[in-house]
């Protein structure tokens, strides 16, 4: 039955015969485990394509939507973190496999006549793989993506004569990346590069088939064997091992998402993906006007040399053990790469940003003036909510609809005695003034905070308001400037410093006017946590 179906299909399409022909190809007797890497690279690409398509199903490809949609994939969709993990770790793993494949071909001298074009197409595929990594790096649109790509496009801009055009082509004119950069990188990542890679892969495979798998020099006398089953088995085992490794990483390694890209965040230290770190370090070696050497000239010379390898080495094919020059070149490159990468890691300060910051829902309260946030606490404590239900009409007006138009005097009176027949509230003058600010000045984000009532943040803001920090400090644009603005405190000070400073300001800032504050441990935790969360 199955045979008849196969025969039917073969008569009409010839596909089963073509597959058999493909599998039964003759390969040299010396073929073996060292030749599995090409197949693994092919499957690595297919896995990137499959997981990439899956990610695109739930991705908003614009700077406004990208970050939130990646968070949605990571936190709201079952299996989303796994799919992104496979794509993310797969990208790094694919680079390793492609480079190992290239090293194997290089060491074995498999690029020699008549396989020069196979090598050249392979070099182009290496560039494609790196371009995938470079463009994909931007797509989560977190700080890492934004600042990494800012540096990348600036480096491209260093190219003599062409720099300005390259930057314009990348949509990064004026040294700022944005909508156009994103659109170009995204389109390159999901349309241009996949199509070009598929075409080049087809050509590469065609050339491999045309010239056959490279035999060793003394192999010609031995009988050939078939691609199927022994070599297919080896290729499958290697691919399986590859998939297991990236699946383990996807499942167990932490894959975060930084805060959404913030072009005003000056404390973020950009760094590229690990496989580009050596280039990043190379930039530091060449200073001043020589920068272009490290940024543009050397990397491009290296690429040109790579393409020209078959023409630079035209010697006769020899056995692997005799290819000492090739092995030495690989070893030297590896040492150079590792050294530069190690220096880059050692000299780049660790990121101060929480790698998981972007996975938490955005906290609207971090933008709210502290007295308004404290007033949210007063609002609930003083039972205002009994008459004012937000987003609903109730005994009192719905305060979420629009800011109150009442004058401050009326409001202050109302907050003392809300109801002519009822009991007066116990709100202090300060608390009543904060409530006036809340009901008259709050914006739409403030209304969300008001309705959601984030307990921990309110606890911190209550202390900030009660101790009248605003008398000297400014936070979120509200307060005085007798003392430093407290926005972005986390970037300047450690938590221990802030806590110690409360207890004994003069010990930390000699000559300061700030008095010591005594908090209970819980209060200290609340106010420090609150202050450290407010961004610049």
């Amino acid at each position, binding site marked *: 039955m199955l045979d008849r179906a196969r025969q039917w299909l073969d008569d009409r399409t010839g596909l089963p015969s073509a597959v058999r022909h493909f599998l039964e190809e003759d390969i040299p007797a010396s073929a073996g485990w060292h030749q599995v890497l090409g197949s693994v690279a092919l499957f690595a690409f297919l896995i990137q394509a499959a997981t990439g398509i*899956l990610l695109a199903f739930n991705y908003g490809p614009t700077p406004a939507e990208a970050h939130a949609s990646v968070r*949605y994939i990571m936190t*709201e969709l*079952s299996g989303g973190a796994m799919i992104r993990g496979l794509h993310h770790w797969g990208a790094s793993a694919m680079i390793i496999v492609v480079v190992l494949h290239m090293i194997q071909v290089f060491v074995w001298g498999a690029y020699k006549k008549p396989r020069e074009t196979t090598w050249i197409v392979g070099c182009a595929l290496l560039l494609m793989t790196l371009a995938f990594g470079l463009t994909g790096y931007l797509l989560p649109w977190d700080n890492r993506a934004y600042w990494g790509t800012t540096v990348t496009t600036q480096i491209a801009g260093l190219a003599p004569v062409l720099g300005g055009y390259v930057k314009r082509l990348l949509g990064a004119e004026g040294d700022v990346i944005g909508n156009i950069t994103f659109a170009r990188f995204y389109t390159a990542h999901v349309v241009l590069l996949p199509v070009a890679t598929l075409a080049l892969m087809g050509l590469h495979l065609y050339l491999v088939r045309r010239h056959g798998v490279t035999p060793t020099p003394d192999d010609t006398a031995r009988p050939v064997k078939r691609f*199927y089953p022994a070599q*297919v088995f080896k290729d499958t085992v290697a691919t399986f091992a590859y998939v297991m490794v990236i699946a383990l990483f996807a499942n167990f390694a932490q894959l975060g998402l930084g805060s959404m890209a913030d072009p005003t965040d000056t404390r973020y230290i950009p760094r590229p993906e690990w496989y580009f770190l050596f280039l990043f370090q190379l930039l530091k070696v060449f200073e001043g006007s020589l920068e272009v050497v490290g940024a543009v000239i050397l990397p491009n010379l290296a690429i040109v040399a790579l393409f020209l390898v078959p023409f630079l080495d035209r010697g006769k094919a020899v056995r692997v053990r005799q290819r000492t020059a090739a092995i030495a070149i690989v070893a030297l490159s590896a040492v150079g790469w590792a050294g530069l990468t190690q220096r880059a890691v050692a000299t780049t300060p660790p990121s101060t940003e929480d790698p998981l910051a972007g996975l938490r829902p955005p906290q609207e309260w971090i933008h709210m003036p502290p007295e308004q946030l404290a007033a949210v606490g007063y609002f609930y404590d003083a039972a205002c909510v009994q008459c004012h239900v937000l987003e609903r009409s109730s005994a009192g007006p719905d305060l979420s609809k629009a800011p109150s138009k009442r004058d401050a005097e009326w409001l202050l009176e109302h907050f003392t005695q809300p109801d002519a027949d009822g009991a007066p509230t116990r709100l202090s003058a300060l608390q009543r003034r904060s409530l006036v600010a809340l009901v008259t000045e709050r914006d739409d984000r403030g209304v969300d905070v008001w309705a959601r009532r984030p307990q921990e943040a309110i606890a911190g803001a209550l202390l900030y308001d009660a101790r009248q920090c605003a008398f000297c400090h400014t936070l979120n644009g509200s307060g005085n400037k007798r003392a430093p603005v407290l926005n972005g405190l986390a970037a300047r000070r450690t938590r221990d410093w802030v806590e110690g400073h409360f207890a004994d300001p003069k010990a930390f800032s000699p000559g300061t006017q700030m008095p010591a504050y005594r908090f209970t441990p819980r209060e200290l935790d609340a106010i420090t946590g609150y202050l450290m969360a407010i961004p610049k």
Partner: protein
Amino acid sequence: MHETNSKGVSRRSFFGSAIQLLGAAIAAVVAAPAAIYLLAKPKSSGQGDFVEVGDLSEFELGKPQEVVYYRTRVDGWKTTKEKTTAWVVKSEPEKAVAFSPACPHLGCIFRWEETGESFVCPCHASAFDTQGAVLAGPAPRPLDRLVSRIEGGKLLIGPQERHSG
């Protein structure tokens, strides 16, 4: 695997089975999370809340009235507030029904015809009475009702629809 070499399992068929097994495992590593990812519901499908649309006493008894209100809807990675409408019919002083504005036939937006005292869909002329029952046309079921409740004399409309029939 239970084969023994004494029975003469050829090298070729061992390789064949191993290739198929490993190939299936490779496919499963991608396909299993992909299936969950595509088919499982998002974890917190945050339903919107009940929204107040008006004072019940302001509705005329037995006369359909279109109400416009804003509801919160979770749209993928975003929560949006969007304008929407409903047809409210107060049947008794303390009772009202809210109909979804879309015809249950193919989703066109129907309207109230004062002259015929019925809801009429402009697409295929389905007609419904004030209780949503089908009077004419191809509609397969009565009008869809929105979950609603009355609280302190106010009519509140909820996020879900109830299909009748």
